[in-house]
């Protein structure tokens, strides 16, 4: 790598970190209550909400994990992008109206608040909060770890920081994250999502054209190289095969409507009718950003196969290797800044829902109410970051538990939340007992299958399997148990 590239990349990241601090300070002034801290005062406009929805869905995974998966598996993981139109449609059809209206009706500060309003059950609220905390701990630790690893990889190339340790990088990363999250709450997160979303769209389009011009005949030549090596890899199901891919289609298409850090954004828009514009904007944003994911992964696979680039040490290096060796340094700097933005805002979103679960929902479910919520929210945010940082630090040497929680986070959320929330908010016959058993079933299957090391046939994702089972449990038990009397206002809203 040329010597001049690294200072440019570092400058872009430094500018971004300063921007984060500025957003944190600005958001601090706008955060006057716990309602602002958790729900952004239910005052977000169309673009802020739409960008927050697609950026949070994509997170740092779109920059690192996504291209890495395409490099490793061919077209298999591209289904996670292809299914986005259907996925966003499902989320919007099911949550865009009902979740937004119910959250306003109950003046909710968190997803479990709306769950309580719907089911009038503290146990259901507590179980949803516990499922959220379990997913958040794993996700957050992996985000902190990812940010520290990328920071170390970049700093180690410089003369001054050539011997910097992962621990130091983790301390730097967490310090900025704590400052940004504690001061700004969800407002800082959603406005960073706006910046991140903008960066991602522009960068992805530029990266796409950089990739196209890497080969004379563009994608056709690149895909032909991959096809000659392995026709299946560039076929529609990649190396994973059709059934495994379709299980991902289910998990990412339907499971997206069960991701609390994403669907809580549907509780924050100013006007319910804005959702009709939020849907196409978030789809377009995700589609453009997906170009980065697809093009980098494929070009690195083709480059390695054709002997144009040495084999990567790890698939996750696909994006960083391409950016450091083939992209213009300013573009590389912008994408790296976007990567930090993605990790930071997603980590903040997780911190926010985790804090709400620990400080607001769990005490409420046992009949306690915290006074001075805003101060306690900030203290809890700080404490969760510290716990997650220790968790990430411990995992960097013996990463089993975090790997389990991180990898199963999406599936855990999907299987636990889709039946009780996505379906339950749109089906009046659902009962709290069925919701509770469905949540427990989903957690049991997700973790049980992993811990017992049960191999799923055709590499079916366990989250998808767990989702199908928990839905059957939820509907059957609802039909078998006595109908639950709904709050008349809730019933009236569900009829709208």
């Amino acid at each position, binding site marked *: 790598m040329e010597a001049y590239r690294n200072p440019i990349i570092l400058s872009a990241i430094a500018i971004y970190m300063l921007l984060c601090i500025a957003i944190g300070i600005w958001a601090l002034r706008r955060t006057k209550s716990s309602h602002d801290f958790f729900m952004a005062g239910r005052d977000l406009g169309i673009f802020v909400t739409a960008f927050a929805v697609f950026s949070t869905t994509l997170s740092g995974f779109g920059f690192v994990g996504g291209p890495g998966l395409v490099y490793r598996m061919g077209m298999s993981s591209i289904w996670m992008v292809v299914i986005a*139109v259907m996925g966003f449609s499902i989320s919007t059809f099911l949550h865009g109206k009902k979740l937004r*209206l119910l959250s306003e009706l109950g003046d909710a500060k968190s997803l479990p608040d709306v769950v309580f309003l719907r089911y009038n059950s503290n146990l259901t609220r507590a179980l949803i909060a516990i499922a959220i905390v379990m997913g958040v701990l794993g996700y957050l630790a992996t985000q902190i770890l990812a940010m520290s690893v990328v920071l170390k990889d970049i700093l180690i190339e410089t003369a001054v920081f050539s011997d910097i340790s992962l621990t130091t990088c983790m301390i730097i990363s967490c310090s900025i994250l704590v400052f940004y999250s504690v001061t700004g709450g969800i407002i800082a997160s959603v406005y960073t999502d706006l910046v991140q979303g903008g960066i991602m769209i522009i960068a992805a389009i530029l990266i796409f054209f950089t990739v196209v011009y890497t080969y004379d005949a563009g994608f056709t030549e690149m895909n032909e190289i991959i096809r000659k090596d392995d026709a299946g890899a560039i076929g529609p199901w990649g190396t994973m095969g059709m059934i495994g891919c379709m299980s991902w289609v289910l998990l990412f298409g339907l499971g997206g409507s069960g991701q609390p850090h994403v669907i809580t954004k549907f509780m924050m828009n100013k006007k319910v009718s804005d959702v009709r514009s939020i849907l196409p904007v978030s789809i377009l944003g995700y589609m453009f950003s997906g170009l980065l994911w697809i093009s980098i992964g494929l070009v690195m696979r083709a480059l*390695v196969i054709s002997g144009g680039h040495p084999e990567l040490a790890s698939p996750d290096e696909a994006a960083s290797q391409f950016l450091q060796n083939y992209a213009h340094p300013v573009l590389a700097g912008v994408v790296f800044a976007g990567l930090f933005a993605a990790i930071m805002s997603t980590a903040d979103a997780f911190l926010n829902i985790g804090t709400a679960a620990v400080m607001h929902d769990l005490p409420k479910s046992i009949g306690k109410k915290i006074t001075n919520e805003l101060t306690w929210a900030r203290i809890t945010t700080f404490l969760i970051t510290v716990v997650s940082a220790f968790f990430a630090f411990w995992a960097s040497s013996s990463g089993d538990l975090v790997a389990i929680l991180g990898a199963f986070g999406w599936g855990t959320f999907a299987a636990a939340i889709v039946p009780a929330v996505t379906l339950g908010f*749109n089906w009046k016959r659902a009962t709290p007992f069925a919701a509770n058993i469905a949540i427990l079933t989903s957690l049991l299957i997700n973790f049980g299958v992993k811990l017992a090391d049960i191999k799923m046939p055709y590499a079916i994702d366990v989250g998808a399997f767990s989702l199908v089972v928990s839905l059957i449990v939820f509907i059957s038990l609802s039909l078998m148990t006595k109908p639950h009397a709904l709050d008349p206002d809730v019933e009236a809203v569900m009829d*709208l």
Partner: protein
Amino acid sequence: MRLTKTFLFCLIIFLLLILSLWYFPIPENASGTEHPTYKTMLHSGSDVMASNTTRVLSYLFGLGVIMMFYFFILFGSDRKKSSGNLKLWINLGFIVYLVVYTLSFFSYLNYETTGHDNFFFGWPTPTAWMIYGMWSAPMILVLVYVIKFKEWILNEEDELEFQRILARRKEREAK
């Protein structure tokens, strides 16, 4: 209620299909194997789709996934008042989706068995179905949602009704 019971029935059939995957023999390397040259890459299994059982199970598994999407969208569009022709458009959207999925599947079988190397806008034909077809087919749902939102999903009368419910609740809580 009929919608829920039909959905439950379809879900149980889908679960039985998933469980049956344990019963039937699984082709070697059905979900890929290590690449012979590059250790950080995977290589697809050969002749996975040669087995008729795998072909049928794979196609049905995909149908099961699409069935779940369909029912969820129906639940999301369900309301007490009339939702106009919304369900008609949803049905149409999913018929298009099913057709594209089926064409993509048969194009893939052809690609696997004949090693066809036709490209369409930079991609092998079955992959082009996936990229351009499967991605864009749900746009019908998006367009209906955007264009007909004020008529079939939430009209001004509904918004006023919600404001009335909200005001009534606040008044009750204030007492």
